[in-house]
């Protein structure tokens, strides 16, 4: 009969951040291990707290499925001897597999006929398999960080102190890391009660829930209980709880029974910037801020404790003291920073190292300022001044006390301090936006000022890291350079920065001190890959992306237009014909080592086809001069124009030999082909890269 099985690994306090990952592994590993043993079941569920990782196997079969097995034996000739009796070998082989010699079969194999024993391996009884299965499940769990604590040196996140192991109402007996499995579970540590009897798997959750000090072992139940309690306590105050998802998940990972307490916060703390208070609450105190319906902070706190206490007021008092101490520190840091001022902070940057050989943060700031002005060259005077001011102070808050304590507030605090010092609004907002975007898809700087300085900062960090040889590889990207490159590309596109990518990169590199073994040559490709990702999201095909890559004098926004135009133009037969011919050009030129052909000399043309080709090219070049290249349709025209080369090119390759013995004529023809290639890779797109259907 199918019965439910349960394994509860009860440990000392697991780090809160391990819990969700551990439960996910527990589920997957259990499923895999059951599969290995051919055990059927209806569902595997996991749940738990920081002190218990529990897996429940529903309707687990009483017996593993039988397996059909074929075992290869000796060659078929050995089945019987001359007298027609079964040989000793045949009988022995049959017996070994639980058969009689007459049950053996002969199977043809590439090596000739052999004896086979076809037998059924009876599945073992689940109750006999479970001890090993449970042990294997425990051993299969891997945590972000492991430890040892006893003689067998089992690696686990924290010491295992009890194991509940049941199949139906029977104990599954085994021992691991010096702990014997039991039918009792541990209650909350602080309340020191006796172990709880668990008679059958279905009792685990209710037995713990019904304790005097309840334990909510089910994650979802614990989460809903917490949210409900936060909302109800906040609404009693007349406000709402700031239900931060991460903090909720963290809180249910360090409580077995979350109980919410509210308390007052001195109103004087509300003069601190909102993000600063929120950070102190969430990161240091693990408390929930209280807000009104507009999101404004209110002078209260919601703290969560583990379990019900007879002493709630004293606990509240303790929490309040800690909160007050932390906020007093924050006020001290904040006021200190305001007294110090951004100028002094910016000076202090000279004592903060950036990357060995690439100067300190003050020198980095200077580079970002120059790079920002380079990017902002065409902006009106006032905008330029604001950008310069933002750039001068973009890193200043790194020397502030608040950011030293709360690194995630970098940028934000700079913006706050700039506001207090009456910076022009654009500069202050720009400083606040300096580190945006924080992830591949999150918000970009809104102001042009913020965007330009942010872009400059990222370009400098990227080129400096590449100069120092710190290039991401595989999953290794400790300085988050991929994210920064993606951020830079997104900003360029969002604000239509009218400078080609390679010029931006070159300028950033030019500003760096010279350093040995620099790998900045790889930076363009690195950033191009991020750009390519965005193009692929727009359904641009990879060959089109390759084709536009040589257009180094185009801005990224122009390249997007060209890519879209080319993506559509791929249906045009004439263009594809021309593209086909350009592949030949590219192949011919690739084989030439010395690419110095000199100018095209018309007097050296001897065939009509080359003259026609040359004249068509001249025509195209002439028409391109006045051509407006702004929208997709402009490029459609350019492609049409270029398509006129298709016929002449075809005739050229049909009738004209390029590699002729007369070196002058050969070079002249190569020069003609090179002119076409150069038009493509500078003005249109390297059509030879296109995949032609």
């Amino acid at each position, binding site marked *: 009969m199918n019965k439910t099985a349960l394994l509860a690994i009860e440990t000392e306090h697991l*780090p809160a951040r391990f819990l969700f990952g551990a439960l996910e592994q527990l589920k997957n590993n259990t499923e895999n291990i059951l599969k290995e043993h051919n055990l059927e079941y209806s569902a595997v569920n996991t749940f738990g707290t920081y002190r218990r990782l529990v897996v429940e196997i529903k309707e687990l079969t009483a017996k593993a499925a039988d397996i059909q097995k074929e075992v290869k034996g000796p060659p078929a000739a050995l089945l019987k001897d001359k007298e027609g009796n079964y040989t000793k070998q045949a009988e022995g082989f049959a017996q070994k597999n639980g058969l009689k010699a007459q049950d053996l079969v002969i199977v043809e194999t590439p090596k000739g006929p052999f004896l086979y024993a076809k037998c059924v391996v009876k599945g073992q009884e689940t109750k006999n398999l479970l001890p090993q299965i449970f042990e294997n499940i425990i051993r299969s769990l891997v945590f972000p960080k492991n430890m040892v604590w006893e*003689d067998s040196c089992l690696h686990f996140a924290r010491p295992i102190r009890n194991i509940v192991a049941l199949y139906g109402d029977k104990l599954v007996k085994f021992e691991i890391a010096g702990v014997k499995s039991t039918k009792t579970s541990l209650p909350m540590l602080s309340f020191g009660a006796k172990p709880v009897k668990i008679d059958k798997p279905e009792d685990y959750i209710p037995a713990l829930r019904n304790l005097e000090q309840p334990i909510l072992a089910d994650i979802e139940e614990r989460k809903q209980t917490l949210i409900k309690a936060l909302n109800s306590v906040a609404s009693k105050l007349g406000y709402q709880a700031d239900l931060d998802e991460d903090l909720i998940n963290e809180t249910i990972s360090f409580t077995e029974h979350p109980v919410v307490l509210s308390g007052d916060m001195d109103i004087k703390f509300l003069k601190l910037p909102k993000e600063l208070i929120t950070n102190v609450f969430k990161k240091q105190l693990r408390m929930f801020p209280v807000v009104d319906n507009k999101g404004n902070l209110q002078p209260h706190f919601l703290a969560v404790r583990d379990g019900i*206490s007879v002493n709630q007021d004293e*606990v509240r008092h303790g929490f309040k003291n*800690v909160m007050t101490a932390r906020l007093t520190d924050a006020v001290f840091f904040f006021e200190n920073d305001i007294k110090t001022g951004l100028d002094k902070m910016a000076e202090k940057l000279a004592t903060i190292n950036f990357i060995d050989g690439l100067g300190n943060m003050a020198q980095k700031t200077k580079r970002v300022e120059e790079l920002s002005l380079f990017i902002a060259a065409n902006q009106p005077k006032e905008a330029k001044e604001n950008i310069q001011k933002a750039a001068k102070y973009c890193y200043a808050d790194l020397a502030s006390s608040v950011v030293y304590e709360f690194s995630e507030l970098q940028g934000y605090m700079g913006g706050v301090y700039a506001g207090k010092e009456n910076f022009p609004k654009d500069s202050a907002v720009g400083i606040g936006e300096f580190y945006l975007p924080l992830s591949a898809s999150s918000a970009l700087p809104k102001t042009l000022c913020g965007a330009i300085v942010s872009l400059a900062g990222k370009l400098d960090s990227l080129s400096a890291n590449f100069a120092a040889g710190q290039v991401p590889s595989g999953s290794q990207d400790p300085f988050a350079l991929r994210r920064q490159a993606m951020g830079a590309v997104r900003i360029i596109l969002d604000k239509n920065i009218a400078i080609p990518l390679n010029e931006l990169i070159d300028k950033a590199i030019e500003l760096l001190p010279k350093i040995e073994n620099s790998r900045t040559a790889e930076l363009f490709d690195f950033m191009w890959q991020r750009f390519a990702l965005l193009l692929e999201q727009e359904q641009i095909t990879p060959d089109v992306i390759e084709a536009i890559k040589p257009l180094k004098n185009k801005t990224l926004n122009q390249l997007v237009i060209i890519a879209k135009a080319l993506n559509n133009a791929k249906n045009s037969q004439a263009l594809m014909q021309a593209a086909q011919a350009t592949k030949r050009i590219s192949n011919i030129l690739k084989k030439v080592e010395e690419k110095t052909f000199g100018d095209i000399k018309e007097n050296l043309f001897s065939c009509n086809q080359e003259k026609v080709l040359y004249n068509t090219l001249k025509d195209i070049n002439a028409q391109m001069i006045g051509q407006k290249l702004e929208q997709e349709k402009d490029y459609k025209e350019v492609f049409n124009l270029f398509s006129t080369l298709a016929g002449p090119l075809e005739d050229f390759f049909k009738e004209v030999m390029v590699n002729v013995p007369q070196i002058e004529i050969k070079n002249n023809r190569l020069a003609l082909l090179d002119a076409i290639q150069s038009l493509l890779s500078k003005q249109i797109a390297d059509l030879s890269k296109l995949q032609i259907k």
Partner: protein
Amino acid sequence: MNFQDIIHTLENYWKKQGCLIVQPYDLEKGAGTFNPATFFGSLTEKPTSCCYVEPSRRPADGRYGDNPNRLGKFHQFQVILKPAPANVQKLYLDSLKALDLDPKKHDVRWIEDDWQSPTLGASGVGWEVWLDGMEITQFTYFQIMAGYTLKPITAEITYGLERIAMFSQKKDNVFDVMWNDTTTYGEMVKESERQFSHYHFEQADIENLRRYVAENEEECKKLCKLGLYLPAYDCAMKVSHYFNILEARGAISVSDRTNIITKIRSLAKLCAQEYVKANTPEEKL
């Protein structure tokens, strides 16, 4: 509970658990873990359980006695249990109860905090323990000491005595804590905090300190060669302390810092090697 009663209560409690009560080691150190009973005690297979008060000096943390939460010298109460008993968490909670801090009446939270000491070449896994939100204890299962992978594993419990006293006496200012029923903590230490802050931040002679570091390093190496690991380890502790003063004095650059830490770590390792050599049965070496 006053400060001295807290110490006596903890000593009494752990004495009943079979701990040897060791006296503070008479050299400056940054933390109780530097005490030879902890450092050497965790290294070999021999079981040990002991406890002691350990005055700990953090020159850079001094604030001239002006800051209600900061001290350049404070007191740890350290418990060392090897092998770590299976009920060690409960033993700890019962010790809080002995201090009239009943875990049933407070919120006790165990926050992941894996301790490491680059100077000792040591690391462990454990928690900081929060009582109603205040950190009062560091709890560690040592895994590595002086580069040695440990077996059996030692549990180290480090109580922050001033924090516990502030909590127990509901004081916001450490100097207001009662040492006994008539004398405050401030009366006992404030002047020393003031004078040592002046010394550590302004007066300490940088050249002399650098010389002390160099001399003690030499001495340590020399003594290790002679198998005199105990005085050698004293020298290593002195290097560490002078380094801490140099740091408070603002005389240590980033690269300096890494170099000296590496230096101290290799000294600690030398001492540990000699200790292990002398205290491990020959067939296991």
